[in-house]
């Protein structure tokens, strides 16, 4: 009897999920162009943040290399965008990031904690300056133009990447790999002892998460129209996912999504309304939210959820207790 209730509720949720998806897909037909662009930007932050959490969330390795992978995507798009079709460019951008991450992952195996973070941050600067040097001395270009792509296409591509990423993140979390990653975060030596191939798992997850950041970079470059290495490898994009993930809360999959969405939207709203004071207001909001929401936004949501559910839960428990006593009587 329990099972019946479960499946019906599941079905209901699935329908809702599909409904939301349809609404999102249909968005360009009923909203203004700027909103779509804003949503693209929000999606960009969400994808970067969720990818970041994919690796750094469970393992506890704080990577500051997001900007490097993002920049690799952007640069791929700038270099290849003129000659290759966009989907191919996006995948190549992702693959370049993937291989860069594999390389970095293999090199940084010994590093832990802050040492790993700073190393990955150094990577951003290293790639940036290497490209600068390369562009100036070898290719003799100073900045590159990227072909402008229709924002609606960009939106759908972003949405697709987002959905694929959510699916993969969800599957990883559910699978034994998710548990293995979690165990690395808790006690790496122990994880290795119980037979988890720690090295392989870490490196591959890192690379997969970088793949998505790379693809987003390749897509977003088409909205930026002009880039050079300094623009493409902005360390800002290394810090943002960390902040957004903490802001949203990392315990659940939806935490970073909400965190990134609200963070990005808030920033845009403030920047357009208070161009001269937005940093001040933004900073105060950050400080206040961390003071009152130490577990991030999901902490707040979970509390709310509990309050809403407490009534229903009480009823449910009562029912179950009754059932239990009934069964006991039968047995007797």
């Amino acid at each position, binding site marked *: 009897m329990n099972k019946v209730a479960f499946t019906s509720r599941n079905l209901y949720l699935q329908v809702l*999920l599909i409904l939301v998806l349809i609404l999102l897909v249909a968005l360009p037909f009923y909203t203004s162009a700027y909103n779509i662009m804003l949503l693209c930007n929000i999606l960009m932050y969400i994808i970067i943040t969720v990818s970041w959490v994919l690796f750094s969330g469970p393992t506890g390795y704080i990577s500051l290399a997001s900007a490097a992978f993002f920049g690799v995507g952007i640069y791929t798009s700038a270099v290849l965008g003129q000659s290759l079709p966009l989907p191919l460019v996006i995948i190549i951008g992702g693959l370049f990031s993937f291989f860069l991450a594999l390389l970095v992952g293999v090199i940084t195996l010994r590093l832990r904690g802050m040492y790993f973070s700073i190393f990955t941050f150094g990577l951003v600067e290293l790639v940036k300056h290497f490209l600068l040097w390369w562009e100036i001395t070898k290719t003799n270009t*100073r900045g590159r133009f990227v072909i402008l792509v229709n924002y609606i296409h960009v939106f759908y591509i972003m949405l697709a990447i987002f959905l694929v990423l959510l699916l993969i993140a969800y599957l990883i979390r559910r699978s034994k790999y998710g548990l293995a990653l979690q165990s690395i975060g808790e006690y790496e030596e122990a994880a290795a002892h119980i037979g988890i191939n720690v090295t392989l798992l870490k490196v591959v997850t890192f690379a997969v998460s970088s793949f998505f950041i790379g693809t987003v970079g390749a897509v977003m470059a088409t*909205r930026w129209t002009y880039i050079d290495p300094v623009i493409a490898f902005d360390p800002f994009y290394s810090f943002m996912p960390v902040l957004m993930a903490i802001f949203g809360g990392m315990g659940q999959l*939806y935490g970073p999504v*909400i965190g990134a969405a609200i963070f990005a939207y808030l920033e845009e709203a403030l920047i*357009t309304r208070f161009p001269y004071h937005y940093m001040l207001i933004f900073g105060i909001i950050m400080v206040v939210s961390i003071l009152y929401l130490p577990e991030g936004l999901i902490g707040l949501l979970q509390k709310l959820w509990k309050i809403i559910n407490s009534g229903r839960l009480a009823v449910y428990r009562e029912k179950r207790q009754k059932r239990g006593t009934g069964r006991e009587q039968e047995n007797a």
Partner: protein
Amino acid sequence: MVKKYIVPLVICLILFMALFAGCTQPSTTPAPPSEPKTGGEQEPEPPKPEKDKIVFGSVHSISGPLAIIEEAAFGPIRNLWFKDVNERGGIYVEEYGKKLPVELIEYDDKSDIGTMTRLLEKLILEDKVDFILPPTGTAMLYAAGPVANKHGYILPGMSGGATTIKEIIGGLPYFFSNLNFSDTQVPAFGELVSELGVKSAAVVFIEDLHGVEYSGAVVPEMVLRGVDVAFVKSIPQGIQDMSAIIKEAKAADVDAFLCLAYPDENILCVSQSMELGFNPKLMIFGPGVCYTFFKDIFGDEGVEGLMSWGAWNGKSTPESQELIDKIGVANVDWWGHNLYWAGMQMLEKSIEKAGTLDQSVVREIMATETFDTVLGPTYYDENRMLAAECHTGEVGQWQSGQFEVIGPKNKATAEPIYPKPPWPGQ
């Protein structure tokens, strides 16, 4: 187990939707009540024939690394123009049969190119501004070019420029370039070098658009003029210590030292040259030296004899002094303020002449006519770049607290000081 994850997932998607619906609603209704507009007042939507003001939109860098340039160069002159036009009662537009005051909607792009292009499209698509103004700096301007062109908006490019613009301007009919850069400045500098009899030089350039372009143009020019170039070195943005380069130049005992970099590095270079007692006969720097804050840092004696690109001053044209008085001499950017002002004047006069706010009509007039501006008779050449004859100067030099034009010869307001006097107190 699926349930455990799907519940939160759905919640997050719903929240996401709700959030998005929140920002969607205003735009679907014709008169958005909560639309972000500075000042809070609303204007009627475009289709209405009645119009009581012309709205200009500008995305520029109020925060971030580019804010220095915005605050020292483009901000003051932009605000002055709006004040000035409104004091005159506005711009006369025949279509509406009256003078319309001008209004500015401004956004901050945090010196981030993605934010800039997005907000620029917001200005065009959502705020439906009548005209847009350029963002801060060359890279930003380049990124804004295709966006403005796509929507058929005139982009007056007063905030930057480089030779690479020639490669793309053909495909961007709405892009106008106002600032002068290396292709006119370097030949003028070359002339100056020959005239002063410079024998040897050292070149340092920043690893960026500006540095690569200028060093690429200057070095061949110097070699052509028989100057012995001791070394050409590049420096990264954000360098902390230039003493090694300065000591090397000092050891080579060069006549001229060229630092083709941005304000940060130029200031570092001047202060370290001062501290290390390096005083060549000629020193020329990239942007920054022509700004007033540079003089504030080192004082009149400290900047005496330093050269930079530019240039203009009160003696350049009859109207120049009037403009300087309006800006206030303490806020002038001696490279581009008059070019910026001329760009705005040309836009204003084109609107007046067109008698409409239609971009393509205004563009046509702007691209073909000659206007009377602070530069004198002013026009764009066939590439929609400000004609070289209209420039008020290419090379400038600080002389007793005044930024004087010293090159080319026919536009000079003063004789160059050569060799450069010693640093104060040395």
